[in-house]
């Protein structure tokens, strides 16, 4: 590989590779960012690492798939392609939102005052439970969204080397739109204010008359719905979904949240794009790229911990006694 790297340095830059990796990195990154948002919101409010989040994302992808089957399958949907996609998003987001709320009520709420390790282990249990339920019900096989027949993939080019497909534009645009909506929700609405207050100081918020339980449920709903959107996007862009897709995606989503600064919403978005770009460029440029791409993401996480443990946009944690 040393030789290949040298070539890249000595020869004129391979712009086609560069732009290709950039676009695929941004696409991947927008999915990771959506997952990371769920992690960061839950962590911000409960100080809980929700291990099951990656599996919620997987369930979202499957609900999207079944919604598509219900609409008649990719070849002859009862509605036009993009409307079908919208329905898939809607159904998956609502379904996973409900799932997230259920998980919170039954697995985390009774443990709210328990030692910190208890909800973590409970979360691990939920994750394994969801993953293997999927394995039991849907098997280990890959399912195909068959996006080519569903919406018809077109590729646009700018200049000679820059290509982007309509799906990639759609993914990036949708995720940015969702993030915008979320930012508005948190910054401008009463519920958002309640969420911020709860995350700042739960007890004080409760004393001010905020129904903390409801706020936490709502947070889980929004976070899980965003993860589901990420899952459907993954299905659309990469065509294939499978029962075990949640684990790695969850790890990377969490990494994104940490790199951006856990608890910070713009941080999660930034972190998501950063992780996506890291993975894409590692695949394209670094030795053993596609095999070891996950390890490069891991290295990024470790480096972040060593240099700036609070993340890019996070504020340092002050431990109260």
């Amino acid at each position, binding site marked *: 590989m040393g030789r290949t790297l040298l070539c890249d340095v000595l020869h004129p830059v391979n712009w086609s590779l560069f732009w290709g990796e950039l676009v695929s990195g941004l696409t991947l990154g927008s999915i990771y960012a959506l997952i990371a948002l769920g992690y960061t919101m839950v*962590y911000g409010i409960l100080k*809980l690492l929700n291990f099951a989040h990656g599996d919620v994302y997987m369930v979202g992808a499957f609900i999207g798939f079944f919604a598509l089957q219900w609409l008649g399958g990719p070849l002859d949907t009862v509605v036009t392609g993009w409307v079908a996609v919208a329905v898939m998003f809607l159904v998956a987001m609502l379904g996973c939102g409900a799932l997230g709320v259920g998980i919170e009520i039954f697995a985390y709420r009774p443990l709210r005052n328990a030692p910190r*390790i208890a909800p973590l282990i409970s979360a691990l*249990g*939920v994750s*394994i439970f969801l993953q293997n339920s999927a394995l039991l019900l849907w098997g280990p096989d890959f399912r195909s969204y068959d996006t080519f027949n569903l919406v018809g993939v077109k590729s646009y080019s700018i200049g000679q080397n820059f290509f982007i497909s309509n799906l990639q534009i759609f993914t990036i645009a949708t995720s940015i739109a969702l993030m915008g909506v979320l930012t508005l929700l948190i910054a401008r609405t009463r519920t958002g204010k309640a969420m911020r207050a709860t995350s700042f100081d739960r007890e004080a918020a409760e004393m001010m008359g905020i129904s903390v339980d409801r706020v936490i449920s709502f947070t889980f709903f929004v976070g899980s719905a965003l993860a589901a959107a990420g899952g459907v996007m993954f299905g659309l862009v990469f065509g294939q979904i499978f029962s075990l897709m949640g684990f790695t995606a969850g790890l990377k989503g969490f990494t994104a949240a940490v790199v951006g600064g856990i608890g910070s919403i713009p941080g999660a978005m930034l972190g998501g794009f950063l992780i996506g770009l890291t993975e894409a460029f590692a695949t394209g440029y670094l030795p053993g790229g596609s095999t070891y791409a996950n390890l490069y993401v*891991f290295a990024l996480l470790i480096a972040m911990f060593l240099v700036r*443990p609070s993340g890019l946009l996070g504020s340092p944690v002050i431990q109260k006694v």
Partner: protein
Amino acid sequence: MSTGAPEPPDARDRPRVGVDEWVANVDERRETGTGVTGFVARTWERLPAVARLAILIGPFVVFPFVTNEGNLFRYGLITVVYALLALGLNVVVGFAGLLDLGYVAFFGFGAYLYGIMASGHSGHHLQAEIAIPIVVVASALLGLVLGLTSWRLLGDYLAIVTLFFLQAFVIFVNNANGGLSDFSYPFVGRVDLTGGANGLDQIDPLNFFGHQITTTKGYYLYTLAALTILMIMLFFVNKSRTGRSWRALREDPLAAEVMTVPVNRLKLLAFMFGAATAGFTGTIFGAVQSGAFPGDYDVGLLITIYAIVILGGLGSIGGVVIGALVVNGVPELLRSSTNARFLFYAVIVVALLVAMKPWYRAVLVLLGTIAFGAVVHAIAGAAWSRSTAGHIEGGGTFGRALDHWVLIPTHASRLAGWAYFALIVAALLLTLVRGWWRAIALIPALYLAAFVWENKLVEQVSGATRLIMLGALLVVIMNVRPSGIFGTSRVEVV
């Protein structure tokens, strides 16, 4: 419940108890356990430590002399290996309170490193008395490196870093077979270290000073001896200054640090100890299997070990053995579907009888379920003949009886899928109702459980079903009794 069973003092809707009162009441609470469980618990506590060890280990010593090789391997050896692994994890999670999700990687590391030093695959054949100390020290050092991250990380961050470490380990052993054309290691160049996805095969049996361990019984006794020694060691460590510091660290790191406990050093020590134990266990496992395969060291095993530690009780040394017996023994029994079926219904009946307070209520529920099933079976059989057309495969008399009770439709995969979903919802809703309502709601829920079991879960008894059960177990234990069977519950005093 008028005797005031040991409720945590900060339970909801209860006046909060001050620290002095809580401490003053300790003997009273200890004596309040009623019935058989209370008696057993008190007797157990009064026994000297040696007797407790003998009771726990004794049956294991006898076991190889009353069973055959196959059973000894499946029930005995694997249980002891799991117990050893869980004992190491218990130090990290139970004593020091560090959530290490990369623990299994050290187990794999031990197996692979031993394999690299002594196997036909690598061509080296080191004696075990040299190889094992190397593995133990190397694992401890690797644990030190990973543990260094725990200096800066709070509990959850540590969990994710270690989980990623496990991921990295699996990716590494899957690819470090020299096949990747554009990658070479520093110093050694391009060699086949791990055999990639096919695994590292032909690992030598353990070979001490020229004496090979060749039989399952030999490995079993060797592992059991290691387990016993480690348990004794941990018993004393637990009482020592280090053990007390670990517990202080687990309960409140900040307070411990203020009390001049060297927090970082102790965290590292726990990490190294756990890693060394796992590495050591890895050498045994590698030698027993005469190979190391990447699929063995994954999250499934991690969950199994966690379930053992948590079931036995975080921080409890003896509990680990019980936990390993349950967590390994039950799925092994589940492997044949007849056994699995029998066990499934037995567990339901016993759990009902133990958990429902007036015993006659439990009996009524059971009788009600049987009647309910018979009625449903009759109606469904008459209205829709396909619903009873399928048959339970095997199962003897019990299976034939079930055939007339549970609906077994042909081609029921999709229906059973929905039923599984409905069962989860039903189980969750059951936690919300109380008293007689719960008893009544239990009847259809139990029948639904039997339906799902016969039509869906029994298909994948040793795969997905097992992990589903373990996952559910973790959630349930955390919610019902976070301290496990043998653990002492942590008390938050106001």
